[in-house]
C-alpha cells in the first residue's frame, strides 16, 4: 500500500503544507524563485517516507534514552542526540525531540538543494529556522495554543545563532509532566530546542498541589512514551505566589541549561505570568510586557 503525504501550497501560494499522520509542517522559504521551488521540491521529497522511517524504530524511540544508542535512522539519531544531555537527570525519551528533529531534517534537505535568504519549517510550533546574513524573524509567543491570538512577539536575528524555536506545555498535543501553559525555547537547533522545552516545561511544577489534577499518561494514550507517569490535566486556582514559585522552579532548570550552552533563551508562561531567561536581546530590547492582573487559570 502506498501512502503519500499531503503536499500542497497553501492558498496564499507562498507557504508549503506537508502532512503525514501526526506530522503537520508549514514551510516558507524566501529567496530566488527557482531556489524556493527547488527547496520546496526537496522538502516534499525528503518528507515522503520520513514517517515510515521513524515508525520502523518507534519502540526504541519511546524507550528511556541512555547514553549510547542503537538507533539507526538519521532523524531518530538526532532525536536521541537532542535528549541525551538530559538522560542522566531523569526520565526522557527521544520522542521529546521528535517534532523539532523532523523540522530540522526537512530544513536541512531544503538548504542542501539551494541557497535561501531565510526559511522556516514549522512542525506544530516546533520550528527550524534559517537566517541568511542580515535577515530576521519575528516570532509570536502564545501561552495557550488552544486559543487565538499572538501574546507576545520576539525577534530573532541572523547573528543570534538560533536555529530552532520550540514550545512545550500542557495544552499541546503531547502531555507534560509540569503545569506550564507554554515554555518557548530558543536553541542552536530545532531538535535541541524541542528537547529543552520539554524538560523545562516539566520543571514548571508545584508537586503535590491539590488544585492540580494529574492522570497517568497511559490512561489517556495507551502507547504514550510516558507510560504511567502522571501528566497534568487540569490546573485550578493558583495564588500569585504559587505561580511565581512554579515558574521559578522552571527558571532554575532553564538557567542551568543556558549555562551548559544547551539553550539560547527561554520564555516561561503560566497563568498569564511570564518569565524570560537568557539572551540579553530578549530581555533588554523588549520591555517586559505588562501582565494582565485578572488572568485566570483554566
Amino acid at each position, binding site marked *: 500500500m502506498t501512502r503519500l503525504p499531503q503536499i500542497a501550497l497553501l492558498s496564499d501560494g507562498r507557504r508549503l*503544507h506537508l502532512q503525514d*499522520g*501526526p506530522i503537520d509542517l508549514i514551510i516558507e522559504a524566501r529567496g530566488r524563485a527557482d531556489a524556493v521551488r527547488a527547496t520546496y521540491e526537496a522538502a516534499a521529497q525528503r518528507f515522503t517516507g520520513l514517517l515510515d522511517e521513524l515508525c520502523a524504530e518507534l519502540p526504541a524511540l519511546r524507550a528511556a534514552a541512555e547514553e549510547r544508542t542503537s538507533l539507526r535512522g538519521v532523524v531518530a539519531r538526532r532525536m536521541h542526540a537532542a535528549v541525551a544531555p538530559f538522560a542522566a537527570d531523569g526520565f526522557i525519551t527521544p520522542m521529546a525531540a521528535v517534532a523539532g528533529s523532523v523540522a530540522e531534517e526537512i530544513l536541512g534537505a531544503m538548504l542542501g538543494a539551494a541557497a535561501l535568504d531565510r526559511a522556516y519549517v514549522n512542525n506544530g510550533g516546533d520550528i527550524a529556522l534559517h537566517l541568511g546574513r542580515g535577515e530576521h524573524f519575528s516570532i509570536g509567543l502564545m501561552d495557550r495554543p488552544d486559543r487565538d491570538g499572538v501574546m507576545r512577539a520576539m525577534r530573532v536575528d541572523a547573528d543570534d545563532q538560533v536555529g530552532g524555536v520550540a514550545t512545550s506545555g500542557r495544552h499541546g*498535543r503531547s502531555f507534560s509532566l509540569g503545569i506550564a501553559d507554554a515554555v518557548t525555547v530558543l536553541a542552536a537547533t530545532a531538535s535541541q530546542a524541542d528537547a529543552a522545552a520539554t524538560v523545562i516545561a516539566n520543571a514548571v511544577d508545584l508537586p503535590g498541589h491539590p488544585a492540580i489534577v494529574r492522570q497517568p499518561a497511559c490512561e489517556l*494514550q495507551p502507547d504514550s512514551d510516558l507510560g504511567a507517569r502522571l501528566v497534568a490535566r487540569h490546573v485550578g486556582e493558583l495564588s500569585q505566589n504559587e505561580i511565581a514559585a512554579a515558574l521559578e522552579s522552571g527558571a532554575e532548570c532553564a538557567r542551568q541549561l543556558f549555562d551548559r550552552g544547551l539553550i539560547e533563551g527561554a520564555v516561561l508562561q503560566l497563568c498569564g505570568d511570564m518569565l524570560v531567561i537568557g539572551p540579553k536581546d530578549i530581555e533588554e530590547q523588549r520591555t517586559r510586557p505588562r501582565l494582565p492582573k485578572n488572568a485566570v487559570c*483554566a
Partner: protein
Amino acid sequence: MVTETTSAAIDKIRCDACPVMCYIKPGAAGACDRYANHDGKLVRVDPHVILERTVSHGGKLVPFSRTEDWDGKIVHEPSTFVTAIGAGTTYPDYKPAPFIVSAEVDGVDMVTVVTEGIFSYCGVKVKIDTDRYLGPETATVRAQGEAVGHVTTSEYGSQMLSLGGVHHLTGGSKKEGRVTCDTLMDLANCKAVELTIDGGATVVVQAGQPPIVNGVREERMRVGCGSATIGMFAKQWHGKVDEVVVVDDHITGVLSEHQAGKLLDIADTGIKMKGRRSTPGRYFQVADPGTGWGGTNISDPLAILGPFDAKEARPGLTMLMVSTTGEHSSYYVLDEALKPVETEMPADLKFSVERIQENCEPALCTVLFMAGAGGSLRAGVTDNPVRLTRSVKDALTRVTSGGAPVYVWPGGGITYMVDVTQMPAGAFGYVPTPALVAPIEFTMKLSDYAALGGHMDYVKPLSEVQNGDDVRQLPWQNPIPGPRA
C-alpha cells in the same frame, strides 16, 4: 449501563491510518488528533472539532434522501444532497475543505464543497410571538446569569431578541463566552433555553414551539389588538349586532365609539367602559394582565363594563363581546333594565368569531442562525476566496446550511441567515474558542468551480463518499435548494 462502561474501558482500538499505529482509547484521539475512537470504531475527526460533537452526529458526512427508500443511485439522483454536517472543518486557514464532492446532476457536472464553518462572528435572531412585555429595548438578555444578548424591538405581535455575536462570545469573561456558546448551540439545535431579561420577563424559548413567558405558555398570536380587530371586522359586524367589545390586555376596542364604527354610521349605544380611554373606542388597562379573556385576568367580561347610559341605550340592544384571539366570546341582549343578558349567539356572529380565531396563528418562537463566512472558510473552498463571494452574489453558487435554504445578505462577504428548524437535528456544534460550528455548503457547476480557483485535486465523486462507513442517511424534507432568483 455497567456493561457498556466495562466493555468501553477495554475497547481501545488500533488506528491504521498511518504507520504510527496508535492505540486509541474510547472517546480519545490518536497522536495526530485526526482520528478518534468512537465506541470502538475509528472515526476521522478534525483537530478543531471536538470528539463529542462529531460523535453526536454519528459520523462525518450526511447525505440526504428525499424519500426513505434510498435506491442507491447517486450520480444522477437529484434528491441527494451532501450536507456539511459532520464534514469536519478546515480551520485554520490552510487545508482544503474535507469533502469536495462532485456529482453529476441532470448531466451537469456539479460540485458541492462541503465544509463546516467555525463562526465566532455568529448569533441568533429570535422572534417570540407574544404581545406580553418581555423587557425594554436594549435590555440585557441573560442565560444562567450571563449576558448573552439583548432585546432589540417589537415586531407586530412579536418580540425580537438578538443573542450571541462576537462580543458576547469572545469579548467578555470566559464564562460569558461559554454560556453564550451553549445558549446559541442549544437554540440552534432546537432545544429549549430559559432566558431572563433585565427589568423584564423570564421566557423559555425553543425554536418551533410556543414561548413560555413567566411560566405561562402562549397559545395563539392575536391577529391584532382589540382596536385593530374592530377595524378589521367592523364591516362584517355591521347590521348584525349593535355593539361589539373586543377584550384585550393592551387595547380594548369598542365598535360604536371606534373610528371604524363611525365610518359605518353605527349609532351610539350608551356603553360605559372601565379603564383608561386612549382615543375614541380604544381603552387601556380595562383589567390586570392574566390568563383570562384577551390576556386579562377576567373571566366575566361584563366586569369591565359600567352601567349603560339610559339616554342612548334601549332594551333589546345587542352586544358581542369577544377576546382578541376569539378564544372567548359571549352574546348579550339588554333587558328592560338595560342590563346585558347572555343569550345564544346568532350563527353569523359565531362565524365572525371563528374568523377571528382563524386569523390568530399559533404563537411560536422562531430562531434564525446568522453568521458570516470568513475568508479562511472560503479559502477552504477555493484558492481565491473573494471569487467565491462574487460567485455567490452572481447567483452562480448556491449557499445552503445543512441543506436548508439560506438568505444571503447583500453587501460584502457571505453573511447568511437560516431557519434552524429547517436543518437536520444536531446540525450545530462548538469549539472551545468559543465559537459555533455550523454546516455550510456551496453548490456550483464543476466548470464554475474550476474557474473560481477550486481545489480540483480534492474533488471526489459522490459515489466515493457514499460508500464510506460514516455516512448517515436521513429523509430530507426540503427540495434541493433551487437557484436563487
